[in-house]
């Protein structure tokens, strides 16, 4: 199997504070990989580093063997890595349909075209409608995304992230703040939409993590202390002490 994402000695400091302290990680192609860890461990920072939102302080990121360290986010996206955000990040004043279409346009090679009319591009609109149906928002497609319910916005964001057909999808806490039934639906959606793709997710809900992930990395204070199958992670003493034990005491 080939490697989708490879991190080598990844580091990030804000001023004198080092948040990510040398992370090495290989994520296989087609793998479902979860990153867990206590609050403030640097999970979201790690996501921002891989996806180009932050510049690296040290180390390298490779995507499908190609060095993508310090590329701007849109370049990384074009190389096939798409992500969602922990805090919902959509285009609030545009309709649901437009949101998804924006997520598709680059992939459909429209670039900065001002000589195509989006309403005439049947293939584009057809694919948009397909994605919207997959995320279950067909009946809501014409309303502004900003007025959707929280769970719907999360689904929309997953839709935007996956619409362009990127082969690596990174989801930052996709089920945060959801009820049980909403979480079940979200997991169903994530499974469906990332089928055959590489999935990297940060998740707090251990039920979700152990259910979905092939492998789990445990990030504590900017370092990965364990990276293994869910079964081994569950039984690992180090992990229990550092993380799961602490959770249980809450």
């Amino acid at each position: 199997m080939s490697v989708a994402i490879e991190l080598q000695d990844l580091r990030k400091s804000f001023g004198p504070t080092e948040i990510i302290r040398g992370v090495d990680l290989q994520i296989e192609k087609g793998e479902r990989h979860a990153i867990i860890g206590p609050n403030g461990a640097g999970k979201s920072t790690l996501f921002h580093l891989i996806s180009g939102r932050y510049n690296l302080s040290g180390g390298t990121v490779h995507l499908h063997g190609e060095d993508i360290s310090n590329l701007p986010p849109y370049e990384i996206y074009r190389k096939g890595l798409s992500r969602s955000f922990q805090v919902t990040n959509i285009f609030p004043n545009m309709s649901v349909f437009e949101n998804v279409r924006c997520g598709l346009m680059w992939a459909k090679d429209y670039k900065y075209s001002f000589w195509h009319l989006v309403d005439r591009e049947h293939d584009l609109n057809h694919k948009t409608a397909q994605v919207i149906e997959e995320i279950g928002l067909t009946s809501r497609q014409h309303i502004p995304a900003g007025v959707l319910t929280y769970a719907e916005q999360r689904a929309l964001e997953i839709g935007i992230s996956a619409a362009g057909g990127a082969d690596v999808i990174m989801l930052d806490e996709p089920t945060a703040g959801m009820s049980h039934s909403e979480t079940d639906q979200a997991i169903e959606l994530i499974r469906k939409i990332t089928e055959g793709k590489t999935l990297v997710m940060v998740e707090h809900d251990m039920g979700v993590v152990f259910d979905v992930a092939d492998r789990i990395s445990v990030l504590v204070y900017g370092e990965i202390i364990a990276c293994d199958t869910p079964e081994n992670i569950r039984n690992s003493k180090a992990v229990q002490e550092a993380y799961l034990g602490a959770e249980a005491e809450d």
Partner: protein
Amino acid sequence: MSEIAKTAAAENSVPFVKRYAVWIGFFIMLMAMPFIFSSNIGLYTMNLMGIFIIFALSYNMLLGQGGMLSFGHAVYFGLGGFMSVHFMNYIEDGAFIFPMWLLPIFGGLIGLVFAIIIGSFSTRKAGTVFAMISLGVGELMAASSLIFVAFFGGEEGVSGDRTMGPPLFGFDFAQDIQVYYLIAAWVFVSVFLMYLFSRTPAGRMANAVRDNAERAEFVGYSQRKVRFVSFCISGFFAGIAGGLFAINFEIVTEENLNALTSGVVLLMAFIGGVGFFVGPIIGAVVFTLLQSILSNYTDIWQLYVGVLFVLTVMYAPHGLTGIMMMHTPAFKMKRLGSLLVPYLRIGIPTVCFMAGIAGFLESIHHVRGAPVDETMMSLIGIEFSTHSVTPWIVIFLLTVVGGYLAKTQVSQFKDAWDTANDPNADSEGASS
């Protein structure tokens, strides 16, 4: 999905006339206007309106659609004007033969060239940085216009003669009515093209970047390039408007590219409503009317425009178009009629209140501005002495009583508004 396919098919089968009803209506209106307002002042006003419609729409490409607040958009308008008036003179001198009606193209091209140059660094950031750069560039251009006299003509500007080109179908543009139709044609084409731009991938992404620039980068688009494309096209159309200005007035001066003109276009776009495509059109029409009609009656018309602007910013951030659009749910439920009486009940005292304020401002202005011995003034045809007590009492009563009565009517109006927009018709609203 089948539903989508159906609606798409339905959209395609809509007859041509119905599909383009708005554009056909717009075209007919442009053609018919001179028959309704045939006076000289009418034509003058409409010509100016047309120029400002293109200018304001090009501005809204930045502010409304792209989220870029520019304080220097007159640069492209003014440069377009200067370039066109120079070409007008070249045509007159026989340097080359070119139809006068295509002149605004040169305005557009110079607008585009300068937008490419300035946009290459100013679109890097949106928000304050962009606004400050636009302000700086605007001041720079205004200052250069007095330094490079050969191109800008110094303080008296550059003038030309639009009648010297080869005539088109007997049009030599000696008469205002011919200029009107020239401007109308350019307005129609420009408005249509600017609308189409908003429906292209670049136009859609401009909205996306305005909404959430960061997210746009994570779907593959560089926010800077998206802004740059909008900026260039906006500069092009501002230049076209400048070219039409040159043809209409046959003179272009430094005033056309300074901060004042940049302010005017911001005012027009905002009063009309930056959130809607038609907003700036309405803003340009209203502003031109205020400018050319109100200024006949009062010296302090700019004060009223300023007050209107401030009120819009504070209470109707979506502009006049926004206020109109607020009525669509009631209109769809056919309940607009039920709002008439509440509107009158709140409207009449409000008008009295505003008349009182305006009377006060006008009288003060007269007392301060008129010669000492001239105490008589005339306001909307009523003559009175500013030194007698009665007018001041009337003004006071109008303001206080009108204001008080208007205030008492607010709650009844709110109730009527809520009833008219009763949410039990939610399904109807969502289906549109």
